[in-house]
């Protein structure tokens, strides 16, 4: 049988920078091909070329059957409904091009079920959690691929699991396996190498825009894949974390808002505290409510001897208290995509870059931006390029670096390593741990149980908006965490 997708000599140059270099690749029928590579190695660019979003440099040859895509940034419009987002490009029309809403509604139900998403099709996407949004994007991919008929079909997923909890991942894998059983193929991009090994038949590795290897997944260990990706061997992913000492100086009491009903905890300087739970449990609201990004309905936050009511807390006041928030929604809340890396980096701490408290010193900014880019291994290291020209993972590093500049005393993070490659993940962890060692409190809300288990001294498991369990010490393993999260 012929291949579903054949790429020959695909290159891509942005301005004067070549980000893809003569990539030649094929996907066979019924095959799942993993595509891995460091942040900025060109994975998304390759996929956007497939989808027609970017044009490849002249000389490339692309042969493909029917394709559907799940893009890295999800490509959803928050103000529109699940149904509209799912069907926007493929509405079925009845008499006089009228949209057949009832048919459509029934039609999408199947795909929402497939990904295990139990929401009404008329819900606004913006009202869903990031995880649920990811499932919507996957459902759209499934619906699209379903529509491409019985010929050669290829579903391309760019980091679909970045926001998914383990059960969502498993469900997705089940769906993908079913698809391939029916003869469709898939391209799967992920920074979670265990997932890649588990799901894929073959793995293509990009390094600096070049395809360095295409290997059988079964033949390689995670460590092998990692070395192929980075071109060097790597040490441990997780840093050693010192056990914190001293008196608790962050006290949160009765914090509520959104899905979160009531949460109380205390933290000592240097502690890394995790929050875990299922979507809707409120674990992912903690960073926002605590820093005033979302309006809390109640509770108090006490830092040292300063106590504030959470309901009146605003980002500005939170920052003054020494708090920092790294939100999950990079595009909307993280950084200004059109502005430069330097400008994004210095935004919250601009006064520190001024002369006479009124003139911004661009020289000082540039120097620090360069240093931060280096310290956080942002590539390409060009502080004057717009943030949106960086790959997703590198953007994430920039945004973490931006908050670190202010040397926060409380660092609240939501999915800080989403879309970040293993190497970068390691660096981010090292920075978090260093911040903790320097006396900051780090609060981490994430679906990555592995990370929680390794990094945190203690994890709060939430259900129904309340903390149902605190896991710490020897009990704190990924397995136990998952158990606690999924126990009902």
């Amino acid at each position, binding site marked *: 049988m012929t291949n579903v997708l054949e790429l020959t000599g695909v290159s891509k140059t942005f301005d004067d920078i070549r980000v893809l270099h003569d990539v030649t690749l094929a996907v066979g029928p019924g095959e799942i091909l993993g595509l891995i590579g460091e942040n900025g190695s060109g994975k998304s660019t390759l996929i956007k070329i497939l989808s027609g979003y970017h044009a490849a440099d002249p000389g490339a040859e692309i042969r493909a059957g029917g394709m559907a895509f799940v893009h890295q940034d999800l490509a959803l419009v928050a103000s*529109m409904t699940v149904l509209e987002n799912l069907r*926007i*490009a493929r509405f079925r029309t009845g008499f006089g091009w009228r*949209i057949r809403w009832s048919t459509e509604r029934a039609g999408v139900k199947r795909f929402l079920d497939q990904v295990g998403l139990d929401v009404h099709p008329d819900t606004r996407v913006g009202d869903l959690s990031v995880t649920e949004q990811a499932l919507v994007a996957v459902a759209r991919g499934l619906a699209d691929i379903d529509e491409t008929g019985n010929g050669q079909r290829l579903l391309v997923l760019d980091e679909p699991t970045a926001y998914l909890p383990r059960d969502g991942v498993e469900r997705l894998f089940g769906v993908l396996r079913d698809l391939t059983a029916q003869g469709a193929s898939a391209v799967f991009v992920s920074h979670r190498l265990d997932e890649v090994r588990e799901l894929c038949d073959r793995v293509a590795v990009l390094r600096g825009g070049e395809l360095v290897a295409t290997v059988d997944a079964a033949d390689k260990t995670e460590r092998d894949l990692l070395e192929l990706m980075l071109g060097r061997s790597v040490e441990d992913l997780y840093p050693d974390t010192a056990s914190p000492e001293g008196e608790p100086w962050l006290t949160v009491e009765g914090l509520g808002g959104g899905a979160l009903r009531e949460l109380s905890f205390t933290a000592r300087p240097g502690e890394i505290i995790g929050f875990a739970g299922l979507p809707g449990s409120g674990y992912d609201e903690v960073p926002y409510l605590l820093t005033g990004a979302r309006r809390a309905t109640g509770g108090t936050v006490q830092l040292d001897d300063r106590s504030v009511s959470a309901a009146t807390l605003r980002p500005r006041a939170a920052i003054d208290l020494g708090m920092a928030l790294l939100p999950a929604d990079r595009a909307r809340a993280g950084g200004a995509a059109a502005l430069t890396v330097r400008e994004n980096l210095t935004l919250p701490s601009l006064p520190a870059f001024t002369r006479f408290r009124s003139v911004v010193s661009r020289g000082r900014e540039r120097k620090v931006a360069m240093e931060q880019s280096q310290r956080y291994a942002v590539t390409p290291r060009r502080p004057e390029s717009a943030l949106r020209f960086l790959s997703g993972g590198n953007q994430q590093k920039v945004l973490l670096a931006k908050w670190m500049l202010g040397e926060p005393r409380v660092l609240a993070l939501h999915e800080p390593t989403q879309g970040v490659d293993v190497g970068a993940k390691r660096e981010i962890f090292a920075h978090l741990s260093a911040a903790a060692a320097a006396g900051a409190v780090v609060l981490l809300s994430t679906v990555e149980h592995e990370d929680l288990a390794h990094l945190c001294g203690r994890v709060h498991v939430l259900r129904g908006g309340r903390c149902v369990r605190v896991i710490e010490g020897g009990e704190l393993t990924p397995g136990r965490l998952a158990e606690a999260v999924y126990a009902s």
Partner: protein
Amino acid sequence: MKTVEKYAVLVVWALIIGFFSWRSDAFGSTSTVKLILSTQTVILIATLGVMVSLAVQEFDLSIGSVVGFGGCMVAVLDGVHGWAPGPAIIVSVLVCAVFGMLNAALSVLLGIPSIIVTLGTGTLLTGITLGITDSKVVTGISVKTVRFMTDPFLFGIPAPFYLGLLLCLVAWFVLQHTPLGRRMVFIAENREVARLAGLRVTLIRAGALVATATLGGLAGIVLAGTNSAANPQAGSYYLLPTFAAAFLGSTTIVPGRFNAWGAFVAVYFLTTGITGLQYLGYAGWPEQVFYGGSLVAAVTLSHIAGHRRMPSVA
């Protein structure tokens, strides 16, 4: 509150009608209804025009120029060169559509924001209009055309009004019931995402700008036909009223989206107040105070009722 929001403008409208009917005997009569319905067709069509491009987040500031140009073009072809009305109208509309393509090429293909492009091309077109008419009022439009535009057609109201109504119907259907309409909203909300989702963003945006220019041209033709002469200067006065009506329309009927019936209501709402004031003898500056004031009041009211859901304009 949602219902309040949907109908806030209608309620204010009803209040205004009530007030003027109470204060002026002449106001509350069918002749007033006829008057209001039959004199606003040019604005109605031009408002639908700007609405189409606003619906995909494009600002077409050349609308006034196109209205002026369309009217003069048909007057020159029909009146000066003696073309038959049919071909003269068709060619004029087509030329306006071509102008829309210029706007589209510059703003969609080259990526220059449409608000800047149309500010420039609009001025250019006004200059051209003055040039081709030699800055003179153009006359000689066929009696047939003029009669068609002004003779009562149904319930004593001339045909163009029904054309406007038909265009509203089409715009309502397309925007609210077809995939294209949904896609336009999608594009307005997030152009990049729409592209990634596989929509033909370029085509749809360009199409909207062409539609705006086409409708603008049509409005100009109705204006020239109604007056049986075309004034090359007339267009510029349509810029602000059409945008005002389109924006006000976006706060009612389907609040938060540019929608046809909202625009329809807005056009007639705004004119009702002016008409009422004229009945009471307050022509002149009170009209403007009222116009501005009621625009602000209606938008604020439906906004408060609907808790900040407005189409994101800029």
